[in-house]
């Protein structure tokens, strides 16, 4: 049983981590495509339509992989976490079912129309299709975050006669302080992925001196939206998330920060390695008093460390939680620096000629993916040892009859399948970027065989 639990956790962690590579881009891109379509509508310049089509093609590939890797997520609640589903299904089933009913139908119907029906729909109709795809994907994000928020901060429920958890207030589940801040923070992360990807592709075109108009459009769009998202990511959304953790999951805060001892004027550690057996951080480089200030707005405030809580309440993977949190915050800070710098160059009209800045933008491409993944690791590892915070322990949530042998079998199957899928995905995305926003146009670098018009 104990052994199977670990495999079930790894199973979910692996499949969700892989899955989230795709929605974070599609949710961010949906907004940016809407931006491009709006520009096309307002300026009447067909370049923006072609730019939107180009990103639509990239969106399409990512959406397809996102859908096929997303179905296993919903299934796994039942297959691997049956005891959890049985206990909490009547609450979290609401938001998960609503996601299917309200957002997937919307998204899949109008994505088909957006990708294949441009001529038929007309200019306004096509803009509307882009809008509905954006709405569907952002609604989907909301309902998933609402599900997770309830697991972090269970509310609006009552306990039934046989100990089962029942929904007590629909609106309490769908709208509460936790879900609103977590949603804002999550979506800004997705927008940043979209912006960094768009800016990186634009920078690539400018650095290789091809498709200059599109290169400039992409860099500009990515940087303008990106600088806003990067700043809002830290303040107020990140700050408010931190406050919620401080108030409702204080032991998680201590573990995230690597704060083993309760102290007044608690420091924030920038770098250092948690040494859990010795209950201390090795080689710390810290800013004194900063943690007290950030959590309680007083430099001398007392922050409870891990020693203030019984050990069976501690998150069970403190080092990984600590690193996830630090990677997220470190990268997030770096994104602000990069985006602000790029935005300043843009305002002064120097960005497109600043090759060093374009290089930075291009090389930043993988970083928002890492930051978003680290953010989710922080949320999920921070919730441990609970699957529903304070209500149900993760150890009591797994399927009682699914052995570790069967769980390994399917985990390895997913690993194999996702490896193949990621190679194909990279190959196809690279081809789209290489083909560019004007597929018919002959590039001087390509062979002389005409591109076949399909």
């Amino acid at each position, binding site marked *: 049983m104990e052994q199977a639990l670990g495999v079930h956790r790894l199973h979910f962690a692996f499949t969700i981590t892989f899955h989230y590579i795709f929605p974070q881009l599609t949710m961010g891109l949906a907004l940016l495509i809407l931006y491009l379509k709006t520009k096309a509508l307002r300026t009447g310049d067909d370049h923006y339509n072609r730019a939107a089509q180009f990103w639509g093609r990239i969106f*399409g*590939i990512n959406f*397809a*992989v996102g*859908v*096929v890797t997303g*179905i*296993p997520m*919903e*299934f796994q*609640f*039942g*297959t*691997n976490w*049956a005891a959890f*589903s*049985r206990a*909490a*299904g*009547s*609450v979290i*089933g*609401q938001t*998960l*079912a*609503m*996601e*299917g*009913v*309200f957002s*997937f*139908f919307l998204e*899949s*119907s109008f994505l*088909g*129309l957006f*990708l*294949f*029906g441009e*001529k*038929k*729909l007309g200019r306004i109709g096509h803009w509307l299709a882009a809008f509905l795809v954006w709405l569907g994907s952002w609604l989907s994000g909301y309902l998933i975050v609402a599900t997770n928020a309830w697991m972090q901060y269970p509310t609006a429920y009552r306990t039934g006669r046989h100990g*089962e958890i*029942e*929904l007590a207030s*629909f609106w309490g589940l769908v709208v509460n302080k936790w879900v609103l801040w977590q949603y804002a923070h999550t979506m800004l992360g997705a927008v940043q992925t979209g912006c960094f990807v768009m800016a990186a592709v634009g920078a690539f075109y400018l650095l290789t001196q091809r498709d200059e108009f599109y290169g400039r459009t992409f860099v500009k769009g990515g940087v303008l939206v990106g600088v806003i998202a990067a700043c809002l990511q830290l303040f107020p959304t990140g700050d408010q998330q931190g406050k919620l953790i401080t108030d409702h999951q204080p032991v998680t805060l201590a573990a995230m920060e690597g704060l083993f001892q309760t102290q007044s004027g608690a420091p924030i550690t920038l770098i250092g390695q948690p040494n859990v057996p010795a209950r201390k951080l090795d080689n710390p480089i810290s800013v004194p008093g900063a943690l007290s200030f950030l959590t309680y707005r007083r430099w001398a405030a007392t922050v409870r460390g891990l020693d203030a809580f019984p050990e069976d309440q501690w998150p069970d993977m403190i080092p990984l939680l600590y690193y996830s949190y630090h990677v997220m915050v470190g990268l997030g800070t770096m994104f602000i620096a990069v985006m602000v710098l790029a935005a300043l160059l843009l305002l002064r009209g120097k960005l497109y000629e600043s090759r060093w800045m374009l290089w930075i933008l291009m090389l930043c491409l993988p970083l928002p993916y890492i930051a978003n993944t680290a953010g989710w690791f922080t949320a999920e590892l921070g919730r441990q040892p609970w699957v529903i915070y304070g209500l149900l322990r993760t150890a009591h949530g797994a*399927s*009682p*009859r*699914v*052995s570790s042998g*069967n769980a390994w*079998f*399917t985990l390895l*199957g997913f690993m194999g*399948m996702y490896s193949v*899928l990621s190679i194909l995905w990279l190959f*196809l995305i690279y*081809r789209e970027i290489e083909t560019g926003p004007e597929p018919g146009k002959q590039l001087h670098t390509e062979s002389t065989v005409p591109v076949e018009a*399909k």
Partner: protein
Amino acid sequence: MGTLWYCLVASMIVVYVLLDGFDLGAGAIHLIIAKTDDERRQVLASIGSVWDANEVWLIAAGGTLFFAFPVLYASGFSGFYLPLMMVLWLLILRGASIEFRNHVKSRVWDPFWDFLFSASSALLAVFFGAALGNVVRGVPLDGSGYFFEPLWTDFRLGDLTGILDWYTVLVGLLALIALVMHGALWVRLKTTGPVNDRAARIAGSAWWGTICLTALVTAITFRVQPQVKENLTTWPWGLVFPFLAVAGAAGVKFELAKRDERKAFYASCAYLMGMLTSVVFGIYPMVLPARDPVYSLTVVSAKAGTYGLRMGAIWWTLGMILAASYFSILYRSFAGKVGAEGSGYDHADEHTASH
């Protein structure tokens, strides 16, 4: 409330089978119905803009099942662990084949994805049928409310049941042949030329297979699951469901002979709907029959709290109205036959504009 949600979830599953059923069926016969690259693009174009939205019915039905019957979701999904995971793998492979095929034109790329698309579609049809067979036959639930079924044991209907035994395999084959008929009728409706001719021939042959297997499986089902006969005796009006299936099957034959492509497809929908609703009616009030009837999960024992179900009924109704309107927009936009000139569906602009 439990009975209401049983009907609502069942209706979503029926819609799923009617819609995704035709693209699974079209996939299963992809390699024999279309020979050249142009023809294969035609088949893919006939489902290209809708298969993804069709599949959403499975996800939405799964989610609704989860919230309305959490106990069933927990027992059923963990008990059918292995086959469900395989269904997921097949769905992944199938989605990838449809999406990736038309991105590259090459003599090794297209045939590979065509084969994978066809094989995964056919296997999915068999798996879904076998899953239905398992539900009808009953699963080894005990007092804990959980069970785990291996893929197979001795292929007999004894105490040691597996996912696959001779009965569930038979239901799986029926599902495959019925969806082949359904898919062929869809492809026929959407195409012209040689693909259209082959679709008519395949639908005609599949009709005979469907009829024979339906008769056989129905006869055996009365023995395997006594509740079916009991329900029909208690509520004779329930005969309307099997009657619908018979009428639908007769309609397919009749309309095939009359060459009315649209009505033949609708008749096939009626057949599938009749078959599925017969099962839904037949096992009620159980939602998951157990081999030992004492442990069966019912619409009462598996349902969620009343307040949640009541709130759900409100948003579900709203959501279904919205979904129905999206689907009517979607299907209307891509109505009519797909172009014969082998336009890949990722360039569907050309063929939607051409008619």
